[in-house]
């Protein structure tokens, strides 16, 4: 196991939340693995996709634990893992890398995480608490409440945790956090690009604060989406609102983000609860509810699974 990359066996795959899998990797012979510093990640070879970084969330020296969120839109790595990985398979993994940087100061610590960006924070927070540094965590996620790692993210004396449920509440106010951080604060931030950019802007005026950032992904490489999973535009007839749905982004999720809450039950394209009138545009039907003739009529769709044809504009009676 001296090479920079080695084969590890998948020993456990378990859903952690909707669209997020907890995956455990171990040496086939159970041998201890190269030690990982807090915040470290490994790169995993995904054939046909390339190397993908995943933060290590555990601290057992005999295994690596990662959490993989199904990215929408992603570049195929998370989709490949969610659909193709099975317990017992072997994957090629790099030695741990300290992409997020070790502590450089000794003052209070501020951790800011968005969504699956919580993963590197687990080991960083553990190390900071062990070092006796005061550490505050701000975690923004859909349906938060520590959903992903409730035990690891429990507040402790000197280590408060702020959860923000982005489905129905405000996001962390980064400008306010930047203003109120005591001098000498060390900040770690990991999350979607929008959050990283906001943190860089907010803390730009604080030379007395050390800021570490980690983006989920390198700037996106072009990807060819499958036939009709491409981007399309939606126009909401009642509000006049227009927006573009990204390739692979579920329409239902986007509608909710836009403040439209269709009534749903199965969210799998079978029960018909979310049947919506379509006033114009070309539909890519993916449901089991409408008959072929009804689908061909093109005047109704199930917004939980169906989409617009790529590059077209769909006018919904919403």
């Amino acid at each position: 196991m001296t090479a920079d990359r080695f084969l590890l066996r998948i020993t456990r795959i378990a859903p952690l939340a909707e669209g997020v899998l907890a995956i455990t990797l171990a040496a086939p012979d159970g041998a201890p693995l190269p030690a990982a510093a807090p915040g470290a990640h490994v790169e995993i070879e995904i054939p046909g996709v390339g190397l993908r970084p995943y933060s290590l969330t555990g601290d057992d020296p005999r295994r690596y634990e990662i959490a993989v969120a199904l990215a929408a839109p992603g570049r195929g790595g998370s989709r490949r893992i969610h659909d193709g990985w099975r317990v017992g398979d072997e994957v090629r993994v790099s030695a741990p890398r300290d992409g997020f940087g070790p502590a450089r100061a000794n003052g209070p610590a501020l951790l800011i995480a968005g969504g699956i960006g919580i993963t590197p924070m687990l080991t960083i927070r553990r190390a900071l608490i062990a070092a006796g540094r005061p550490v505050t965590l701000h975690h923004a996620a859909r349906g938060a409440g520590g959903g992903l790692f409730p035990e690891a993210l429990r507040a402790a004396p000197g280590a408060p945790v702020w959860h923000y449920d982005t489905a129905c509440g405000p996001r962390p106010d980064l400008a306010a956090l930047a203003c109120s951080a005591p001098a000498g604060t060390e900040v770690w931030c990991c999350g979607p690009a929008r959050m990283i950019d906001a943190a860089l802007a907010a803390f730009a005026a604080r030379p007395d604060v050390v800021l570490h950032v980690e983006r989920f992904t390198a700037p996106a490489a072009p990807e060819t989406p499958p036939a009709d999973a491409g981007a399309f535009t939606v126009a909401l007839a009642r509000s006049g609102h227009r927006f573009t749905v990204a390739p692979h982004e579920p329409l239902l999720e986007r509608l909710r983000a836009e403040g439209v809450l269709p009534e749903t039950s199965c969210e799998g394209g079978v029960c018909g609860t979310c049947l919506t009138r379509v006033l114009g545009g070309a539909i890519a039907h993916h449901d089991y509810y409408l008959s072929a003739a009804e689908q061909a009529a093109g005047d109704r769709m199930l917004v939980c699974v169906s989409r617009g044809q790529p590059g077209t504009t769909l006018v919904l009676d919403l």
Partner: protein
Amino acid sequence: MTNALPSDFRSEDGPSAEAIAGFRAGMEPFWHPVLEAASLADRPRAVTLLGRRLVLVRLDGVATAFPDTCRHFQAQLSLGSVVRVDGRELLQCNYHGWAFAGDGACARIPQLPAGRCIPKTAGLRRFAVAERHGLIWVCLAEEPRFPIPDFPEEADPRFRKVRLLEEHPMRTSATRMIMGTLDDTHFPWVHEGILGDRAHPEPPLHRVWREGAELIVQYEADQPAGIMTTDMSRPESDAGATVRLTYTDHVGMPNVIRLVKESAAGRYVVWLATSPVDYNLTINFWIFARDYDLAAERDPVYLQMAAHVREQDRPLIESQRPWIVPPFWTQIELPLGPGDLPLIEYQKWIEELGIATAV
């Protein structure tokens, strides 16, 4: 156990003729278990499969299936007997003595005048038969669409097996029976204290995918410690505790299911092969395998508990209408995501296979 219709049986809320025909035709091109292999010895046996009367018989040791109707004047061949003629075994109709060979050809007509040949059209259709997992399986179509699903633990000597053949057939369709066994969100409600807790009705997070002819569902669940979830013969087992189990459910489409439950104690497997007598009557062949608590005298404990859980399910599954799982477009059912995802995916597949076609 008999698979004749119970005398008090009524098919209330009967499906349309179209739905019944769709179910029978859709289920035809699959292997279906019909009998325990050990129960087919020296006498023919009558079974009903998808509404058709069949006779099962061993001729020179080979399990064979024909329509249970003599080609001559349509008496039941299962009332007949196995006879030896010219060194080979034949199935003889006991009405007029016509006898049929293993390939279905008529081999003897006692009334045939001298100098006449047996008519070429006097033979029987022979259905495909297989013996696997201790059962006899029949396929009514020329070509089965999928093979009989594997059951690795069945032949594995590290596993202790108990078999359960329910005393009464279930008054439900085979597809509803498979769905009832695949469903986990009913555990806290129907099997409280055994497989769940009503204080925790939240469904687990499922992974669902297709692999060859199997629908696979995987999830983790915390369940009460007991005979169905862990090794209670160990001194440290605590009946008050909860046990973390990983379920991997393999549905051999459309009529077989194998639930593999992994825990710290080991592996416990629930295997069910359903025999669709018809759209509203199903015979269940169960096998339970475990690789812990291996003493033979413990078998009755496992069998009793399994039978108890089955009887908890029975009134609810038998109460479901329509008998045949309806297609989604009818909007008769209201599945709720994401907890019902495994059932939704199973239903999608049986709809694709042409088994759920109408109400």
